[in-house]
């Protein structure tokens, strides 16, 4: 296999929230120009990982390098300069509710550039066209469905022509049609704009159709990685449980709890 350029490199990442260990020594590489998926059950810290990569949180130990820069060491203006090269799609879109769709998509352009109004308009309409929502340009975010809001947010995320784009659970709560549209957009944008896409998700089926490479996270560690096809044939019990959606396995059905005897039989002693 050809040696690929690595855009994001994580080494020995440890992160704790209170007493809870979220990441316990994570190493991972995200190649440029590909779609990489970070997968794992709910609560494994996938979104936290995105926040760490984008500098919204700082790791306790280890390094995160994005495009050669160590994120945690950047000062505010350097971090903002780096973020201008990133697009981030929040789970709920995070559109500004006081602005129309047009103003939402135009927002980064107005803040970071001095482009003339006519050019801003052309760019915004082109980006909205790319997500199929040019017709919503004068609507308010509250008038959009969940899937549409996410597509508008996607148009906003790519309006500055970023190098990399992060999707935080892009498929959650969408109907099959909207889901298909988002899947198509992720693939299309990655190819046509030459982006690097990082998708956080637990939808095995959808993600397998777009991702070039998958990382499976569990209990603060990477438990499996590779192309979707290779992972589906992986024999490790954890990967099998996740990829096939089995209710019980290395991830137990029951959340850790006191033993049944303790919970049901010793009640009198406690009171």
């Amino acid at each position, binding site marked *: 296999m050809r040696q690929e350029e690595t855009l994001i490199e994580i080494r020995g990442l440890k992160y704790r929230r209170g007493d809870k260990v979220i990441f316990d020594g994570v190493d991972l590489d995200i190649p440029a120009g590909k779609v990489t998926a970070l997968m794992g059950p709910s609560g494994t810290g996938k979104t936290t990982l995105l926040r760490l990569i984008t500098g919204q949180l700082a790791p306790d130990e280890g390094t995160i390098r994005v495009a050669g820069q160590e994120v945690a060491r950047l000062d505010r203006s350097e971090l903002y300069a780096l973020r201008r090269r990133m697009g*981030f799609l929040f789970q709920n879109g995070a559109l500004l509710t006081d602005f129309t769709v047009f103003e939402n998509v135009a927002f980064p352009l107005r803040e970071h550039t001095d482009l003339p109004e006519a050019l801003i308009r052309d760019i915004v309409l082109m980006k909205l066209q790319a997500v199929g929502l040019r017709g919503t340009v004068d609507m308010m975010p509250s008038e959009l469905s969940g899937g549409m809001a996410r597509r508008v947010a996607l148009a906003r995320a790519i309006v500055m022509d970023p190098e990399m784009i992060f999707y935080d659970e892009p498929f959650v709560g969408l109907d099959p049609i909207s889901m298909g549209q988002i899947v198509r957009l992720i693939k299309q944008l990655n190819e046509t704009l030459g982006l690097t896409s990082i998708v956080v998700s637990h939808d095995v089926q959808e993600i397998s159709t777009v991702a070039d490479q998958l990382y499976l996270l569990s209990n603060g560690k990477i438990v499996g990685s590779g192309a979707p096809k290779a992972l589906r044939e992986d024999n490790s019990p954890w990967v099998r449980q996740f990829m096939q959606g089995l209710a019980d396995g290395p991830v137990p059905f029951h959340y850790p709890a006191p033993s049944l005897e303790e919970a049901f039989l010793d009640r009198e002693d406690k009171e």
Partner: protein
Amino acid sequence: MRLVRELRDNSVEFLTSFGSAVIFFLRLLAYTPRALLRPRLVLRQVYVVGAESLVLIMMAGLFVGMVLGLQFYTTMAKFGAEQSLGAVVVLALVRELGPVVTALLFAGRAGTALASEIGLMKATEQLSGMEMMAVDPVRYVIVPRFLGAFIAMPLLTAIFNAIAILGSWWVAVQLMGLDNGQFWSPMPDNVDVFDDVLGGVLKSVFFGAAAGLLAVFEGFRAYPTAEGVSRATTRTVVMTAMAVLVLDYMLTAILI
């Protein structure tokens, strides 16, 4: 023992939040010059915050003035001192009631709106969204709102005072039959521009800073849930009311 522990925890918590409010305030001040370079954002907030409270302030001013006219007229008529009514009403309003009542009403109307707006923007990740678009939410959202409240407060106080004076004039002169000249003529001799009027303006400037700061501070540090936002809103009113009354005493003591 429990009482001691609770007292200790509460005072630690109070000091911590007081400290973070001060740090937050310094941060706002540091951003202010740059925010003033974009006056459109600030002016918009002055408009929003001011227009939101305007009708309430005007109504309240009218009735406060009318009550003052009625109370002072009946009391002062007993001593045959009703010809001083105009001056007394103006002094009470300009020095004390105008700034304080305006600030309290402002906290209930605009302060809560600011806190819940910012809290909801946080809960719906709009502030994180800005961060990710490399736009600092403190600069774009918080500082303009703080400055909006800071600038709107003295203006609202002036409107409150003007309408309240007219309200008391209407009751005293039109209803109770005080002579028009007797109402207005003692004002120039008894109301001092520096001591009385500027003192009142100074109060409203301080109250504007306090009300604006507390509203954006509570909104910005709100826990991003429905309950968190509602708590922040309540705390805004309570804290602003306390701050205004304490500041009022301190400023009065200094100014006198």
